[in-house]
């Protein structure tokens, strides 16, 4: 915990709204220069965490540090080095998008005007239109242009691409890659698995205000089981004798089952003795990993904390 090179260090964070518990000991860590995915079902506490990091909400317990500083006490100075994009952008209806961008940039302090003009073009945003005539996607672009042209050390993005079309999502992806290439840190809260897969180095999955999975994306894949479909000469029911096979589904001579990553070699060699005629192996997808955490009804923290060694 004593390391100072972390962009975000959150441990045991608690927040209650009356009797409702929003955060119940949440942990989150983003290293400098890292693009970190922040995932969880609706109502898991992602936005609450980000609002606490921005000093908009006061935590009821735990520790939160951003760029080594206190998000509540040092809010103003901290915000010169942080840019934020909310998932639901509300603008002043009677001001133009361009005016809103200037205002948000001015509030931030420093702004790269060349980058701003370039971003306006890349996102195809007309800054002369009044904000009330903007669609949701266009309002989102206003916040993105203001944040990405700000020279911030750390970007806090709360579902930043909601409402953007696929082309604009690509623009967003390349912009974030450019930011990362310049050594900036990014916390990206998102529901779009492909986006997280493309952009993020690490992922933190939360549920009911607690962290259930955290680690490098590559390592998380290893925790997931491989899905195997197989057709053998004999009755597929015999496969239940092999150790390491889980969730076996049998239909005549065909079977479907899942195997833990570390059991795979032994299961495959055992399987060879049944003379498989056909075998399809599906690698673990992130989507399955996420969905497992999203839909787990037990409510307890699931899985091993991978990547703790960093």
């Amino acid at each position, binding site marked *: 915990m004593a390391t100072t090179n972390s962009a975000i260090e959150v441990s045991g964070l608690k927040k209650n709204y009356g009797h409702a518990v929003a955060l119940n000991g949440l942990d989150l860590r983003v290293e400098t220069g890292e693009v970190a995915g922040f995932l969880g079902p609706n109502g898991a506490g992602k936005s609450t965490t980000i*609002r606490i990091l*921005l*000093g*908009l*909400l*006061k935590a009821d317990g735990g520790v939160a540090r951003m760029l080594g500083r206190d998000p509540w006490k040092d*809010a*103003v*100075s901290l*915000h*010169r080095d*942080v*840019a*934020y994009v*909310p998932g*639901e*952008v*509300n*603008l*002043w*209806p*009677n*001001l*133009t998008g*361009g*005016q*809103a*961008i*200037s*205002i*948000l*940039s*001015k*509030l*931030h*302090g420093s702004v790269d005007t060349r980058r701003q003009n370039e971003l306006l073009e890349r996102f195809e945003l007309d*800054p*002369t*239109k*009044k904000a*009330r*005539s903007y669609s949701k996607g266009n309002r989102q672009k206003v*916040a993105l242009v203001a944040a990405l042209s700000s020279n911030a050390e750390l970007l*806090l993005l709360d579902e930043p691409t909601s409402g953007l079309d696929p082309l604009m999502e690509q623009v967003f992806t390349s912009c974030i890659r450019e930011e990362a290439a310049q050594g900036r840190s990014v916390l990206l809260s998102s529901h779009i698995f492909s986006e997280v897969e493309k952009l993020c180095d690490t992922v933190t999955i939360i549920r009911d205000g607690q962290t259930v999975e955290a680690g490098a994306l590559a390592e998380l894949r290893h925790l997931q089981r491989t899905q195997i479909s197989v057709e053998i000469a004999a009755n597929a029911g015999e496969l239940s004798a092999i150790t390491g096979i889980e969730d076996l589904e049998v239909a005549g001579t065909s079977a479907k089952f899942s195997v833990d990553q570390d059991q795979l070699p032994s299961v495959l060699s055992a399987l060879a003795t049944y003379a498989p005629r056909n075998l399809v192996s599906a690698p673990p997808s992130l989507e399955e990993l996420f969905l497992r955490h999203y839909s787990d009804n037990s409510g307890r923290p699931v899985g091993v904390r991978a990547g703790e060694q960093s």
Partner: protein
Amino acid sequence: MSTQTAHGRHALLSTVSVSNKEAGHNGAMTGFSTMIWFILRRNWLRLSIWALVLASMIPIVFDSQQQAFPTQASRDAYAQVANTPAVAAMTGLPYAAGSLGGILVIKIWMTLAVALAFAVTFLITRNGRAEEETGRTELLRSRAIGPHAYSAANYFVSAALCVVTGALISLLCLAVRLPSTGSWVMGASIAGTGLAFIGLAALCGQVASTSRGANTLAVALIGLFYFVRAAADLEAEGMSPSPLSWFSPIGWAQNMRAFGENNLWPLLALLGLGAVGCIFALRLESSRDMGAGMLPERRGPTRATRFTASALGLPSRLQRASLISWFIGVVVSSLFFGSVAQSMSSLLDPSNPFARNFVGGGATMLDGVLGIFFLFNALLACAFAIQSLGTARSEEDSGRLEQQLAGALSRRTWLMTHLIIAVLGSGVMLLLGGYLIGLASQGAGEPGVLAGACLSYWPAVLLMLALQLLTFGYLPRSSTVIVWGVYGLSVLASMFGGLFSLSENVIRATPFGAVPRVPAEDFNWSPLLVLLLISLALGTVGLMRFNRRDVLTD
């Protein structure tokens, strides 16, 4: 709480589709009854409060007037002096001041009629343009609902409020044993005013493209028609108003003359205006796009000016239109007050106790009249200040504050900029109002001196702002309601305290009653210092609390 609401909405949407399946037709009004139910479901409390509060004024005011004028002799004496320009301008011609019913009309009719006009205006906008602006109308219109069902149901519910309020007023008049014909005309004329303004508010809701614009337009119309009839009543020959009266729907309703001639035919004109307005509004609705107004959207600047992007510049820019209209309001009303001050005071008989009571017992009638005008100007400046500081809460509620605080802006600086606009704006309005009253009065007083006199109400305005800061800190979600509620009570106490038989001490304990009514009363520093100290304390506590609380978004 929120799950309940969501559940209710879900149930409602399924009702919409079910009832349409049953009805099995595709007219412009399909779903009309469901929408009535929907509007009642969302507004029943609001509707009940308007109807009950307005109607309950009848027994309260009747009671106080019965005590003030217990005998026919006292009422006859009052009738001799009742026709003053102040009464004519503010509440209409006192055509039946010799009867209890007529006195009731003088004291409360105009307040009730104008209040009902405001009520329907706000309701029509709330369930019309505001719904469209937020996109909720789109959600409803995507179901099998006729294009006019929601609007027509909105007009219908507001009309029902007018009818129920009018009926309650009539029944309460009958309950205090006023003549029956007059009682029914009393209720009908007030309900008729409301119905006529439904038509106008409906039109405003079609022309403007924002709820704010629709309300501003409709309230401006109420103000315009109020001034037209005030001018007509000031130009009156005896007890018959000038023909100008027929250019204002409020004038039509006045000409029904409850407890006087009891005319029913102007009611037809009121109903006609309401109906024509609604029909025309529905026509406009079918000829325009969902969400659009009649006025085209203009393009704007590519970037904000250095001023707009500054901490103080943004709230000033956001309130620009509102600031301009408030200042126009102050200029127009002050010039009007100033120009009638001399003639009004010369018509008031100083030996008459009622006239003296009205102006608050100054050395001269003119001083008393000026004191009333200053109070009026102060209440106007205070309404501006509350509305102006209220933008702070709406910035927070809409989520726009989050984006500003996510920049390098401290909470204190942000709230202070909003406070500065309210504080300085109200101060300038007080000075300007007093100065213009002096200027237009042609010699009633030195404009500079009158401006200073008006400014003595500043501490009272500051106290209301401090209360707003306090509630903004501790009860942000109900801050606006609480402050407007306290403001409404202060208006009643300081303007009509005598009417409700409030004791002098109680009136002195309210923010505006505490300020010495110069020039009639001697100027005195001590109440102003007390007001300032309380303001400072409440305001500081509120500000400190805001620095420590969560930012609350809707």
